[in-house]
């Protein structure tokens, strides 16, 4: 087998067939991945056509009636549109402002602490919530936030009367963002700690000799060392400003907080899967995907300009 390939090397150098043959077994390696991506990612992309039709399942995509951009227009003109857009973007911005700096601060603090049991234990504990399932996490939030739950009991000690956080729409964004902070801050430090571990110790030694305090060294050595990571992650989070944590929101959503918790992805689920309006939901989903892809391209371009590194 190998020898015939070698022989062909001489016969027609650089030909397409020779190259394919040479890699033939590697195609078998990639076949399953190729197949599953094709079926479960590309065929649904073709299904996007539904968004331009009045899709009916028995007639299929080729038999259904085409309606052009009618569903998009219906979405833009619906009275939900601005509410949904506002919620989607507000939750993302709140998330970036409140949650993004948290792992950076914690990683810088971990980096100052002396290696030993305390540091290791604290790291292990703060990483742990990352592995709790979203369902259990939401269950904890609900149990803690009920009027006779933990948070209200603790507030009662300080003399604050109980609030029903979950039924007041004004509280939803904070519940969503701060529970996310509790769950993800620790794990988020991992990537920054790796960058901090790469800081050249002679920089610190030189700074100590020059009389720099710990705080000065953190500010002028450690922070610049993780700056590239910060910039890339920050830019990326702006790229996903139209995406929210769908699973967390859908679980925390109740009829009472819909005015602040209904975002694009949950709306697609609501009208599509629950309401059965497939075509309309597909159109809304497509609108979101297109904006996301566009944002990512723009943001990647900015990232490359600013930091010299991007996603591709």
């Amino acid at each position, binding site marked *: 087998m190998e020898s015939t390939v070698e022989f062909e090397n001489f016969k027609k150098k650089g030909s397409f067939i020779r190259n394919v043959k040479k*890699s033939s077994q590697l195609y078998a390696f990639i076949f399953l991945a190729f197949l599953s991506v094709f079926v479960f990612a590309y065929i649904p992309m073709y299904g996007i056509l539904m968004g331009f039709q009045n899709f009916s399942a028995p007639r299929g995509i080729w038999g259904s009636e085409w309606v052009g951009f009618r569903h998009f227009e219906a979405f833009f003109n619906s009275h939900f549109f601005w509410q949904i857009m506002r919620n989607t973007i507000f939750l993302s911005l709140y998330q970036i402002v409140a949650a993004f700096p948290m792992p950076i601060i914690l990683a810088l603090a971990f980096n100052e602490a002396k290696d030993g049991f305390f540091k290791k234990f604290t790291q292990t504990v703060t990483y742990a919530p990352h592995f709790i399932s979203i369902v259990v996490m939401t269950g904890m939030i609900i149990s803690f936030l009920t009027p006779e739950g933990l948070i209200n009991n603790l507030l009662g000690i300080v003399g604050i009367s109980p609030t029903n956080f979950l039924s007041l729409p004004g509280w939803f964004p904070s519940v969503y963002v701060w529970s996310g902070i509790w769950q993800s801050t620790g794990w988020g430090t991992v990537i920054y700690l790796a960058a901090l571990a790469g800081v050249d110790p002679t920089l610190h030694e030189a700074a100590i000799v020059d009389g720099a305090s710990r705080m000065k060294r953190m500010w002028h050595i450690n922070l610049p060392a993780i700056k590239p990571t910060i910039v890339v992650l920050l830019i990326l989070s702006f790229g996903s400003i139209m995406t929210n944590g769908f699973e967390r929101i859908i679980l925390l959503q109740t009829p009472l907080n819909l005015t602040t918790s209904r975002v694009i992805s949950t709306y697609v689920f609501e009208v599509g899967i629950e309401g059965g309006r497939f075509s309309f939901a597909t159109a809304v989903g497509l609108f979101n995907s297109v904006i996301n892809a566009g944002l990512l391209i723009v943001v990647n371009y900015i990232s490359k300009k600013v930091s010299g590194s991007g*996603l591709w």
Partner: protein
Amino acid sequence: MVEHSKLDARKKLTIDAVQQQKVNEVVAEVQARKKTWKIQESKGDKVFLFFIYVYLVLALIVTLYPLIFVLSASISEPHYVASGQMVLWPMGVTWEGYQLIFNNSDIWRGYGNTIIYTVLGTLVNLVVTIPAAYALSRPEFYGKKVFMIFIMITMFFGGGIIPTFILIQNLGMRDTIWAIILPGATAVWHILVTRAFFASNIPREMEEAAIMDGCNDFVMFIKIILPLSMPIIAVMALFFGVANWNSWFPALIFLRDRSMWPLQMILRELLVQQNMHSMPEGADAAIAAHRRQQLAQVIRYGVMVVSTVPIIMVYPFLQKYFVKGVLIGSVKG
């Protein structure tokens, strides 16, 4: 000057143990000072470090407290929890909640289903991901770039939930185990991470030598590459395993049949929808309605513990592998 030093030299030669001792003393003092100087932080640094530790202790408490509370509440007398008397440690210890949980057939079935989905799903994930990542790491793989673009596009753009739902329905996979396992078989990000590992950890020369010796790609992959890549396979198995264990959404939209639900779906019913009708079925006659109401909250805390224990138990031992996985990814990403 010169004369002086000469004189000094002569003096030094002629004298003297006393002076030598003095020199030693000075040296010792300098060294001692050096040591204390190194240990002694400036006042500002001490204050700064103090605040760092205060902050870390706060982070520790904020993270740990809810976890301990859940654990304590799951074995406490319900009225102590509801009234806020139970703040940290269990009060009026009762195992009733756990008894009800372990007598509940839904939970057991859910647990069983989750184990099946997790084991099978993770195996499928690995079989699909690892070989593909290896092929993509080989520089001479013809068409590598096309495949990379082909799979990476799906990270940024997709058909969305509705077309996927219709597809699964058309394939006849609804209410089958395949709807849970197959759609997520390929995780593009994990392929990229594994590929980065292969690219930087498998020496090219070794592959070339194997090919020279007439080894084909299959034999090489199984006999040479796999034994060398156990770390990345372990990392990937962990990532996939946790994701499969915690997964609930595919089950929500694809499985109408309750008996097929994974544990997370049962938990959703108990914890999120606060729907207890399935709960104390085993002992319903024996338990008064009022008591049932009381126990509902204890049961909720109990199932949080029961469902999370397998992961939290193994996690501290595997932590370094999880961290490694993130780091391999961040090198390329």
